[in-house]
């Protein structure tokens, strides 16, 4: 019983320590943030690793300076940016404002050369519009759409001009026009989509689909329409809505140059989130560099996967394996507290249990009964003693008194019994000395106590 309680007590302490160890081990903190363990991995990474540098190059600083000095608007070979000439001219309003337009995909040294052309007020690399000390970039989906689908930088140029003259920016205007694709345009697209699930328009640079990213983003399959960047100033064929009408249940991803649109189920919920977060993060890189469409599409699909795994918009979460630690973590403090409480209670009981011995058992064999018997015997013997046996009697009586006070003090039974045994031996000696065998303690006590 006692041993069992001790085992329980120590095992409770062991469990408490184990729980504490588990709790501490679970406190590891990590800086990796993952959207519900999204498997996506594609990103538009550092310069030079994703084919974003084109073959385009720029002349020397001196040559460019001379070109800019000769002409207020200089378009270097490969330049893609366009703007609404009438509005920009109105904004310039006759001032000496010179614009240098360079192609996208320049490396750092070439960009620095463009930056070093001092007499250019506005420098445009790809579709990145800058002019000391400003960089103008769109901040909403229509702005990004105009920039990446058609190379339209009108809004940025106007904003930059306003900024240079410390005037308020003009309101954004969405000049992009759409047109319904003609039946003859739509037919080859639908044929290709029905056959292979993708259509790559002439001029587009998509050698293959990013298969894994596409499967993660759209597990049920999707249609991909990939077109090159559209000419500025002309209406865009709206393939997305047309295809959506054709197959309402099928996700449709339409790509115009670097601009990607989603049409299909759930578009109202997440197309805007995916697009805005994607272009807000990568818009700067996309405008400066000439990424292959394959990489842009891969990164966009990774973002769609992230949004899907974030569990937003009531999308069913992907299956997460049962993790006992994650389930048990909230209960651990209670478990620990319970173990500690049990340990404390059992410790208190242990201390109490080992406390002052309970009074010796009362009965024929108990120390108090024996003390009483021996005291009576001492009284009887005291009548018979002489000078020779007196000391033994006195010693016996003293032992009896010591036993009595030990009993009163609650000293251990063993000690009391030892004192009583000493007293009995002395009294035995007395009885033998006075030749009264009937008064020997063994005999006397057996007679009185039985």
């Amino acid at each position, binding site marked *: 019983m006692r041993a069992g309680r001790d085992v329980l007590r120590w095992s409770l302490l062991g469990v408490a320590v184990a729980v*504490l160890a588990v709790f501490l081990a679970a406190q590891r903190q990590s800086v990796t943030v993952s959207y519900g363990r999204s498997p996506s991995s594609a990103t538009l990474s550092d310069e030079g690793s994703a084919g974003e540098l084109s073959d385009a190059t720029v002349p020397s600083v001196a040559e460019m300076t001379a070109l800019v000095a000769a002409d207020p608007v200089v378009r270097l070979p490969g330049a893609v940016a366009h703007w609404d000439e009438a509005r920009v001219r109105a904004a310039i309003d006759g001032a000496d404002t010179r614009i240098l337009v360079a192609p996208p995909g320049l490396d750092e040294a070439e960009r620095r050369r463009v930056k070093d052309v001092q007499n250019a007020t506005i420098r445009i690399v790809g579709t990145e519009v800058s002019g000391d000390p400003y960089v103008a970039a769109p901040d909403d989906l229509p702005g990004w759409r105009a920039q990446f689908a058609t190379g339209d930088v009108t809004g940025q140029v106007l904003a930059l001009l306003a900024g240079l003259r410390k005037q308020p920016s003009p309101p954004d205007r969405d000049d992009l026009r759409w047109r319904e694709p003609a039946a003859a345009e739509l037919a080859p697209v639908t044929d290709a989509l029905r056959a292979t699930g993708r259509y790559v328009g002439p001029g587009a640079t998509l050698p293959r689909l990013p298969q894994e990213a596409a499967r993660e983003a759209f597990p049920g399959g999707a249609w991909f329409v990939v077109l090159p960047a559209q000419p500025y100033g002309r209406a865009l064929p709206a393939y997305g809505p047309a295809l959506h009408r054709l197959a309402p249940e099928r996700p449709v991803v339409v790509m115009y140059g670097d601009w990607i649109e989603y049409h299909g189920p759930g578009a109202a919920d997440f197309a805007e989130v995916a697009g805005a977060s994607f272009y807000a993060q990568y818009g700067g890189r996309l405008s400066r560099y000439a990424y292959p469409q394959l990489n842009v599409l891969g990164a966009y699909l990774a973002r769609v996967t992230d949004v899907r795994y974030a569990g937003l918009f009531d999308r069913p979460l992907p299956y997460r394996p049962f993790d006992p630690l994650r389930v048990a973590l909230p209960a651990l403090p209670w478990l620990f507290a319970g173990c500690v409480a049990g340990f404390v209670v059992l410790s208190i009981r242990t201390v109490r249990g080992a406390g002052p011995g309970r009074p010796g058992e009362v009965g024929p064999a108990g120390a108090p009964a024996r003390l009483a018997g021996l005291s009576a015997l001492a009284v009887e013997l005291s009548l018979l003693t002489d000078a020779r046996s007196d000391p033994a009697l006195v010693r016996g009586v003293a032992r009896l008194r010591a036993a009595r006070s*030990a009993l009163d003090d609650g*000293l*251990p039974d063993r000690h009391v019994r030892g004192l009583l045994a000493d007293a009995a031996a002395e009294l035995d000696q007395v009885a033998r000395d006075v030749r009264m065998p009937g008064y020997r303690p063994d005999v006397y006590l057996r007679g009185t106590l039985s």
Partner: protein
Amino acid sequence: MTLSVLPWLGGGVVALAAGFAAALLPRRRARAENRRVAWSSARAAIHDAGVSRDAARTPVPEADRLLARAELLAAARGGADAAREAAEHARRADEMWRRGR
């Protein structure tokens, strides 16, 4: 942060305190009891020696000295070791008086 750490810290401290108390209290109690038992025996032995001295016919100076030493120890009320030493002295004095009788 602090609030969630508090139960663990408090629990650990309480468990530690309980463990120490459970280990130390019985030991202290046993020591105190041991001491009282030893003094109980010692006082009985000193009393015995005193009785033997009164009953002795010839004085034994060595025994007197031992008993005085034992009584001195008892008056100083030391620990269990002092009690055992006093009991030993008293017992030897008791034996000397009984033999000298």
